[in-house]
């Protein structure tokens, strides 16, 4: 699943860097090959560090955090064998909330397969959102709350095939893409402007039924059992977001 996540992150950042430049040709070829170079990235719930390592290899200055000490130990020992990672990758044993008290904010915050395990998803989303720099990006991946996802991720994966241990997932905690969109239609992030606190405009314009391409995007993740490989579903493919999906939203610059 990991290459597909990175593919989505990369494509989205590339798309935005095109949009940001007034002349598309102005995007340098190095940046076109690798839009992550030099960005500050936070991976919330990094687990064994699969995504963090990939992002660090792509040149992002990556911090992976996880609330499990053993996960961080595994991630650190795994990364220590790779000489390429020492300069760009670091890990921290911590949940996301304490980072709010630090001044540092990130160009990209990712949190993959975390929100469906969280007890207070709204609070969690707020924390992640606040850690993003203005104009920065938030990437999430999770599982939608549909009969199909119940069938595949709980009934099949936990009880029939026993790929993951029973109780890993809780159906009621699954989040639908529309719920994430609705959250960011209301969410205004605090902005610091000349010392006084202001709120930004909502991350997604609430007056338009669907978020525009520059605000947010939902893409389905499909598993092809013949190739034993995940693929990124095309935009708006029918039914593609009924189970696993990726979500991207951009923080307004002002």
């Amino acid at each position: 699943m990991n290459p597909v996540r990175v593919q989505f992150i990369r494509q989205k950042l590339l798309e935005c860097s095109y949009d940001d430049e007034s002349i598309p040709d102005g995007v340098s070829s190095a940046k076109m090959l690798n839009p992550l170079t030099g960005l500050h990235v936070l991976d919330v719930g990094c687990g064994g560090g699969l995504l963090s390592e990939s992002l660090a290899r792509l040149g992002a200055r990556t911090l992976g955090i996880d609330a499990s000490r053993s996960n961080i130990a595994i991630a650190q020992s795994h990364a220590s064998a790779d000489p390429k990672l020492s300069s760009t990758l670091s890990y921290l044993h911590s949940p996301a909330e304490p980072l709010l008290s630090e001044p540092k904010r990130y160009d990209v915050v990712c949190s993959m397969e975390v929100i469906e395990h969280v007890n207070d998803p709204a609070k969690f989303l707020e924390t992640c959102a606040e850690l993003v720099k203005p104009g920065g990006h938030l990437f999430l991946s999770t599982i939608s709350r549909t009969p199909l996802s119940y069938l595949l991720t709980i009934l099949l994966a936990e009880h029939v095939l026993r790929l993951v241990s029973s109780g890993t997932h809780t159906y009621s905690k699954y989040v639908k893409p529309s719920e994430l969109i609705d959250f960011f239609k209301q969410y205004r992030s605090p902005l610091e402007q000349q010392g006084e606190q202001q709120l930004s405009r909502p991350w997604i314009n609430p007056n338009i039924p669907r978020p525009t391409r520059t605000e947010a995007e939902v893409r389905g993740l499909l598993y092809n059992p013949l190739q034993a490989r995940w693929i990124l579903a095309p935009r708006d493919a029918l039914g593609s977001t009924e189970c696993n999906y990726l979500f991207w939203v951009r923080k307004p610059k002002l």
Partner: protein
Amino acid sequence: MSLALATRSGRGIIATSKALKPLAPFSSTVGNPAENCDVVIVGGGPVGLALVGALSASDLVRQNLRVALIEASDLSKVHNWSMPHDMYSNRVSSLTNASQAFLNAIGAWDFVETSRTCAIEQMQVWDGISDARVTFDASEMGLPKPDLGMARLTENLNLQRALLRHLKHNGGIEMLDNTRVDSIERDTAENGGWPLVHLNNNRTLRARLLVGADGFNSPVRSYANISSYGWPYEVQAIVATMVHHPRGAFENPNRTAYQRFLPTGPIAFLPLSPTTSSLVWSTKPQLAKTLLDSEPGILTSMINAAFRLPAVSLQYLHDRILDAVNSGKPLVHSELTEEILWREKSHAIDSNSTYASALDRSSTADVVPPIDSDVVPPLVTGLQPGTVASFPLRYNHTDSYLGEGAGARTVLVGDAAHTIHPLAGQGLNLGLADVECLGKCIDNTLLHGGDIGSYTALLPYAQERYLQNHIMLSTVDKLHKLYSADAASVVWARTVGVEVLNELDSLKAALMMAAGSRPGSGAAAGLHSSMGWDLAAKGAETLVAGSHIAKMFGSALNDTLSGALSGFVQRATKNK
């Protein structure tokens, strides 16, 4: 992956450590001078060189990876290789259009001396016993440029030199030639267990990815502990560069490849220039040894005879030559010529016919040739000195292309992964297809920030190549076995198979496509070629199945109809 985090953050438990601890910088064990290297390729043959060629042509690789190639021999000799324009090296490969398209895409084909290569416009393949013949013609194939031929015969050294020049032009690759791998060991577990490649110049490379392009006796494969299965064929391949008169004004130019399937193995005539062609003759080891040891004229005469005389006479000549050697009085050339002349007479082959080879007809080269002179290659007049050599053949396929566990971070390409009978000329083409696929796989992994040495990153390479190679390997293996048989029923079945094949244009096109002849790029080409592979496999299966059925019928009919049908088959065979 982050269940623990979730439950904890959900309960609001906050970890105490707030300081951002940077990761401890990488350090290898004290006193270990291992140099970190992203891709270490062992073996500087055509396949290894093509892989570094593909890597050096990729921007992503150039920006991200340190690549080194280790080769025991002196590559500068290959780099500076040259030969007079009328002399050719004896190791020649038929590069399919797919292989050429790959070499073109990485920019290496520009460095090939194309005047030393020859496009094959036609292929004639026939059965040594029944003479059933199938003809492939490039003009039937719907190629965008038929004059490019269905494949291009290229000296291996010409290709290797081109790849080395291409590498020099691109730069960015460490070429460690005159360097041997002393041993390969596994790094300690806390260092990730990466392969440590100890070189004979006291350097040690710590490889993120170790590529075995090191041939059949691959040290990388032994390190990775990948087993393989296969069997030696009881045949020895004789190679040589043959010299002959040019084709006349009334004949097709020398751009037709010929292959005759004899019961002892196939003999192939591969054109290089109007007066030079390359020989690949697989035959019994004892005969190969005897032919190589006898005076040069004997081999020349036997080559001409092998394309012309009926199988029964060839068998007689083989026995005659071996008997003479065993009795301590090897045949001299004049004795052999006499024997061949006698055999020709007994088969009623006129001395002016296409099938006559005993008499030197060079003086009559400019008279009108027999109307069927295109069915056999031109008469060989001599062999280029120093080009006659032989090597054993075997079938081999490893159980996996990727090392796992203690042998992790290894991948095999080319002959290290598979060896194939040369009858279809596919060995190098399979190897080139391997490295094309591996190069793309590495590129794709870099694009997504993956670890190019990891099993998951390399899996697409194994998934794509293993089955395709296996289909080709098995098809060629079965063709070899099918044509080694001389039981009448099998001959009948394959004769019918081949002759029907010659009529069925669609199947033939599929087989030709299977030879990778359709040039192209992108997904559509991939689809075409995989379709071709499947059809080719089916074609071979049909032939084999046909032979089984014929055998079955043969025994059943023997009982009931007193072998009337098999008798007919035998008569039919004898008449031919």
